[in-house]
């Protein structure tokens, strides 16, 4: 590897950094003013690109190539900004006072809906845009050809950075944004029209994201996977740069992009007789940058310590262990589930569906341990599901281990991942925790997708069949039921043990818990590890149940399924997630399988839940019951 190659990649890194920065900057500005982390931010980037590749040829026909191309980019940015304003007025305005989790879910629902809308509008095929007129050539740089457009992109980032800086410091609108970021009540007290300010800020942020997406027109085709991949990257950038800091966002984008470029430039490296392909490390590089920065500066490069956020929504009622009736009901349900194989002659599908429900129950219950008693809403629980599933599948197929041992390997893999990632995540709270968990899940997904030698790439691993006696539908089902019941019992014991009490204490008041001598971070770390391990068990069962595992099964969609299960059932009850898991599994099986747009439908369901019960489902039901009485 030559110095020239390194320098060449460094310039490339600047070009990538600009794209990352545009998305992260918008996310940061919106969060600063509205305190909402816009999960659909990547969607606006994706929409920007789709709009650009659609508008550019149209405008090109009317006004000629150059005007078409640049007009297309500008038009795409303006249309995304307008769409952003529409979303703010129609949706976000209703949820500013809702609990954080609901805001995250509502914007995530938007992501699902926008993705399906794009699928309906533009179809599943990638769409290529025109090349940039006047910038389609390349310049000779250190003996290689550097595309003009990349140089242009490399410059755009700093230009937008300066423009945003001017906007924020020199204009009245900018001063209002900064004032609102620092003290929202003050702005309201000064008699400024908050509603207009919020709409404008959201339009600005989404417009910048759309602009960033549109600029990629000459570099990459518009495709439906962009929203999530960009979102994951943007979260990493924002966490590294420090939430709310524009400078931090640019520096972090540059850091991440340059480290990635460096890995690509290094290519194959020989070390002690082994050959490493460094370009494969680009995904891990992102993680490493984040890890190093967060260890040295827990709030990001330019971030400030997060103010303790007041908990919105009602305090949960004290948890009470099951009484006699409760135990009898639980036992009865268990007996019913255990008896399902007896009916397989009549309804052959029953054990298959019941197996799905049992796996979902363990998955949801493990997530609920974090969300409910822990108060930590993980948006990346699929990571541990995936680690468990891949660990099990790899051990069962490639290593040829017996079924129970392979399952153990899967759980151990998930545990290791949860211990590693958890160490970083538990330092953060609220939206920061949600963002970091999602970013980690994206990294796990990407590794599953790209580490072909081990994970089988996009095809995944096949032929993960259990040994006897687990090879029959009933055998596997009963084993899964046993594992799930053990997991649920463990979770219940934990929640009522001193550990669970301490976990709830840290959620209710971290300050008070620390003042009593409780090491809140350590308690949360252990909870994260246990939840991840149990989730890994669900993943292992899943691999055996399906006989295969692929990246698709561990995508962000699975994390969101978990969140919906927990919310449907009610986050304030230990039984809730089980009901939610059963309900959503049935719903997916019966209705959603029939339609290619079922993710969008799920999004609509989430939006309905959030809009009808803005303070939480459980609280909503309690209110209903209260008014009926």
């Amino acid at each position, binding site marked *: 590897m030559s110095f020239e190659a390194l320098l060449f990649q460094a310039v490339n890194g600047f070009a990538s950094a600009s794209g990352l920065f545009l998305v992260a900057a918008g996310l940061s500005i919106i969060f600063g003013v509205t305190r909402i982390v816009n999960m659909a931010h990547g969607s606006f980037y994706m929409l920007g690109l789709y709009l650009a590749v659609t508008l550019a040829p149209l405008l090109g026909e009317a006004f000629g190539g150059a005007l078409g191309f640049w007009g297309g980019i500008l038009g795409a940015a303006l249309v995304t900004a307008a769409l952003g304003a529409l979303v703010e007025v129609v949706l976000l305005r209703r949820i500013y006072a809702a609990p954080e989790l609901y805001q995250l879910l509502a914007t995530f629902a938007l992501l699902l809906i926008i993705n399906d809308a794009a699928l309906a509008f533009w179809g599943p095929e990638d769409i290529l845009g025109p090349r940039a007129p006047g910038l389609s050539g390349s310049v000779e740089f250190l003996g290689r050809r550097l595309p003009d457009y990349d140089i242009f992109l490399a410059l755009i980032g700093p230009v937008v950075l300066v423009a945003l800086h001017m906007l924020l410091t020199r204009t009245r609108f900018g001063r209002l944004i900064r004032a609102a970021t620092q003290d929202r009540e003050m702005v309201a007290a000064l008699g400024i029209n908050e509603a207009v300010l919020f709409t404008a800020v959201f339009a600005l942020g989404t417009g910048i994201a759309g602009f960033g997406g549109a600029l990629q027109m000459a570099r990459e085709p518009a495709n439906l996977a962009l929203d999530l991949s960009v979102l994951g990257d943007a979260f990493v950038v924002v966490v590294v740069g420090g939430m709310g800091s524009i400078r931090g966002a640019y520096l972090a984008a540059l850091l991440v992009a340059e480290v990635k470029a460096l890995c690509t430039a290094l290519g194959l490296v020989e070390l002690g007789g082994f050959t490493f392909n460094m370009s494969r490390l680009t995904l891990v590089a992102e993680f490493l940058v984040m890890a190093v920065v967060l260890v040295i500066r827990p709030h990001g490069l330019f971030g400030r310590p997060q103010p303790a956020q007041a908990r919105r929504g009602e305090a949960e009622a004290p948890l009470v262990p099951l009484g006699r009736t409760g135990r009898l009901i639980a036992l009865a349900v268990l007996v019913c589930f255990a008896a399902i194989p007896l009916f397989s002659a009549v309804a052959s599908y029953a054990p298959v569906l019941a197996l799905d429900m049992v796996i979902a129950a363990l998955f949801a219950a493990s997530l609920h341990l974090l969300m409910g008693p822990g108060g930590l809403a993980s948006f990346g629980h699929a990571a541990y599901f995936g680690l468990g599933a891949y660990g099990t599948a790899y051990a069962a197929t490639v290593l040829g281990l017996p079924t129970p041992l392979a399952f153990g390997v899967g759980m151990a893999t998930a545990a290791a991942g949860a211990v590693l990632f958890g160490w970083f995540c538990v330092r953060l709270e609220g939206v920061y925790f949600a963002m970091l968990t999602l970013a980690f899940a994206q990294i796990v997904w990407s590794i599953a997708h790209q580490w072909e030698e081990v994970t089988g790439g996009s095809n995944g691993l096949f032929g993960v069949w259990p040994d006897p006696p687990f090879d029959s539908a009933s055998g596997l089902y009963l084993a899964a039921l046993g594992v799930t019941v053990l997991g649920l019992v463990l979770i219940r014991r934990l929640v009522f043990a001193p550990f669970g*009490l301490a976990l709830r204490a840290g959620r209710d008041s971290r300050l008070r818990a620390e003042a009593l001598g409780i090491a809140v971070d350590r308690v949360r770390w252990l909870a994260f590890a246990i939840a991840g391990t149990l989730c890994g068990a669900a993943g292992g069962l899943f691999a055996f149940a399906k006989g295969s595992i692929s990246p698709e099964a561990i995508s962000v969609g699975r994390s969101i399924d978990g969140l919906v299960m927990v919310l449907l059932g009610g986050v304030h009850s230990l039984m809730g997630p089980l009901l939610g898991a059963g309900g959503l599994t049935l719903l997916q099986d019966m209705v959603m399988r029939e339609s290619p747009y079922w993710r969008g439908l799920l999004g609509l369901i989430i939006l309905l839940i959030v809009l009808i019960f803005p303070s939480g489902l459980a609280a909503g039901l309690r209110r209903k019951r209260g008014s009926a009485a």
Partner: protein
Amino acid sequence: MSGNAPAPVLEVSALTKHYGGVRALDGVSFAIAPGELLALIGPNGAGKSSCFNIINGQLRPDAGEVRLHGRAITGLAPRRIARLGVGRTFQVATVFGSMTALENVQMALIAAQGRVFRLWAPARRMAREAALALLEQTGTAALAERPAAALAYGDVKRLELAMALAGDPSLLLMDEPTAGMSAEERQAMIALVRRLTRSRGLAVLFTEHAMDVVFGHADRVVVLARGRLIANGSVEAVQGDPAVREAYLGGVSASISETP
């Protein structure tokens, strides 16, 4: 205090803290003896909060030292200081809203006993008697099974006191123990603290705005103004101190001489 005074529970010496060019604390030193109720007062911006937060570990001083029973605890994390036998109550009383009053105190006792990482045995049966005894002492036994989120504010304050006492501390730090309470509640609360400190030989450092509380109950008063210690003595001595009157210039100067 006379020549053979007992060894102090807490000694702070030459505490200094700057914020930019502002000296929030400038060489502040004082000590507290066992069983002593010491009030830390001063006008707004005098450095009370900085001083308090340095002692409880939330803030690191630029210079100076905090000693607990002769052991330096400067800059230790709040949870480590708590484990060394320092109880705390907050200006806005903070308890665990999703637990019953009893569970709140049980949690405090379990934490003090270092049993937080027990994963299996139910917490309900742990430290139950001791928790009920603490609720009894603070007059909240009748509320044991009530969710803490549903308690009246005065009861929350007393529950918080019970929790702060759970570790059998030798020092209690109370940030405005009577803030947000009515006049009668204030007197009852401070009388309760007074009783508990006497019976346990507990040293209490408290900040307070309500002068009736300070002058009616404190054993000794330390006065800060603009980051400096300007007076340290009995209630009578402090009330008669011209420097203190000077610091509380204006409308407040009238109220400071007002004894209940």
